[in-house]
């Protein structure tokens, strides 16, 4: 508990730094006033809008105003939609979570059995096939895989819908697209972690006790092999929260990534800031959870 609390405290400076960087980045890329007013607007009209939005204040003043609002939970309004920026972002969260969760499930369902099997049958034809497949899976661009899946499973054979988000059916192709890439990485990781563990003395001990090979592999070995894998899994999850733009675009999936890129293009500052802030929190949380799971799985690590 104390450990968790300390780590939460440590995240505050990280979050502050992120808000500062994002704050500066959205401002050096140009102010949104020109996009907010019609082309016919006069320079005076622009100037008065700048004044009204506070863009004429010195940057430090603007930053601290922003921070003050942030602490009160106010991320400002979207220039584009004239509504609360955080509300816009939160609206996208369920779609993002849904896709991230489903992709992770796909990745786990593929990588755990394949990783274990190719380690157990190392250097066999099966192992070569899986290892080769994993290299391909990692090299394959996600937009290409997404388009191929659409082509084959939504257009040629109309099993799944092409795009959008409307129930479980819609989730499958984008989750497969994202999950496959992650599975490729995780399969390789699980394989090499399992290979290392299977050579350990305690595996010989487990066999000498007369345990079934399935128990030796799936319990005694996998439980150890999982320790390094969990960290990578958590990192992958955090990239799923913010970085699924390409897949979201291919499948017209209304997630956070899509909103963020739109907002960047429109210089919708408040939305950019709110979205990045939330993504940062999720990344930090995933790391914390990874760390906690790591400690839970490995009794050799002490809490302090």
């Amino acid at each position, binding site marked *: 508990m104390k450990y968790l609390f300390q780590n939460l405290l440590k995240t505050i400076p990280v979050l502050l730094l992120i808000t500062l960087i994002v704050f500066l980045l959205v401002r050096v890329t140009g102010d949104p006033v020109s996009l907010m007013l019609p082309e016919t607007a006069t320079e005076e009209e622009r100037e008065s809008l700048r004044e009204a939005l506070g863009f004429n204040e010195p940057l430090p003043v603007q930053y601290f105003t922003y921070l003050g609002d942030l602490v009160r939970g106010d991320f400002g309004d979207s220039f584009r939609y004239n509504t609360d920026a955080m509300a816009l972002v939160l609206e996208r969260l369920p779609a993002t979570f849904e896709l991230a969760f489903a992709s992770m499930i796909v990745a786990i369902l593929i990588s755990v059995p394949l990783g274990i099997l190719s380690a157990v049958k190392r250097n066999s034809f099966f192992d070569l096939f899986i290892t080769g497949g994993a290299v391909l899976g990692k090299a394959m661009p996600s937009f290409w895989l997404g388009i191929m899946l659409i082509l084959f499973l939504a257009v040629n054979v109309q099993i799944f819908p092409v795009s959008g988000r409307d129930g479980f059916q819609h989730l499958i192709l984008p989750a497969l697209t994202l999950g496959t890439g992650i599975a490729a990485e995780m399969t390789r990781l699980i394989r090499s972690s399992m290979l290392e563990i299977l050579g*350990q*003395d*305690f595996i*010989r*001990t*487990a*066999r*000498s*006790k*007369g*345990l*079934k090979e399935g128990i030796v592999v799936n319990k*005694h070995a996998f*439980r*150890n092999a999982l*320790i390094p894998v969990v960290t990578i899994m958590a990192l992958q999850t955090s990239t799923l929260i913010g970085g699924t733009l390409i897949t979201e675009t291919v499948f017209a999936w209304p997630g956070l990534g899509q909103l963020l890129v739109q907002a960047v293009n429109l210089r919708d500052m408040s939305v950019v800031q709110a979205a990045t802030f939330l993504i940062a929190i999720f990344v930090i949380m995933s790391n914390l959870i990874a760390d906690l799971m790591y400690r839970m*799985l*490995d*009794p*050799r690590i002490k809490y302090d």
Partner: protein
Amino acid sequence: MAEKLMDIKDLKVRFKTEDGFISTVNGVTFNMNEGETLAIVGESGSGKSVTSLALMGILPPNGEVYEGEMSFRDKNLRTLSKKDYRALRGNEISMIFQEPMTALNPVFTVGYQLRETLIVHFKMTKQQANIRGIQMLELVGIPDAEKAMGRFPHQLSGGMRQRVMIAMALSCNPRLLIADEPTTALDVTIQAQILTLMRNLKEKSNTSIMIITHDLGVVAELADRVIVMYAGEVVEEAPIYELFENPLHPYTKGLMASIPKVHDVVDDLYSIEGTVPNPANMPSGCKFHPRCPLADIECTKIHPALEYVNEGHAKRCIKV
């Protein structure tokens, strides 16, 4: 005459490596009787562990028995089904290993690892297995056994872990306990404690013990009979008294000469020059000839057979 417990005849084991197959156990023959303690001695690399792993049916994935016979009680181990072999392992034949630091699974508690064997072989409930586990820990002299059940291996010292291994191996009352260098990795004082423990266990139970060691001090402490192995072969076999009184094979004599006079500073002090040959490149004739003080031209040509000189005493040498 005691009843025969197990029998190994002309056992050969090979490993698949990048340079093809290498044979590291080359026709090992010996047997054990019920209640007997047999020591297998020989320098590191002579094939002692591989022989015992073959007997347990747990050779590494690249290893295989490619010739010979192995039987345990009335069972032919070479034709035994996987399932029946599993039923034997940890139950009728169990094993403790050299490295107590790495032989226990780091992510499971001592209790879990102890209970597991009992649940598999004796179909005990978790509670029953727990009670039996605590008894076993007490038997091997672990203080506060109940608490120790909840400990993880890294929380115990090397000596305590080896005691846990012994408790685990004995929990199903095996007919045969194979102890592969159980004290080698431990401090001298702990070594003595573990040996005392094993001697007590030997006296109290009728479990037969196969103790593998390169330490003749350990042999003298525990064994009834001794097998000396060199380069994947048995080079001498003798009752303990015979072996110390009248060692025949030059290799055995070399081992004897290197025993320190004071027993409690036992250490590897082999005075035999040279090293165990590489299994991929075995000498012709007698495998010991490059290191043997008695070797002559004949020894480089003739591969001696294991011959009995009298009841229970055999040697593999043409000169003695």
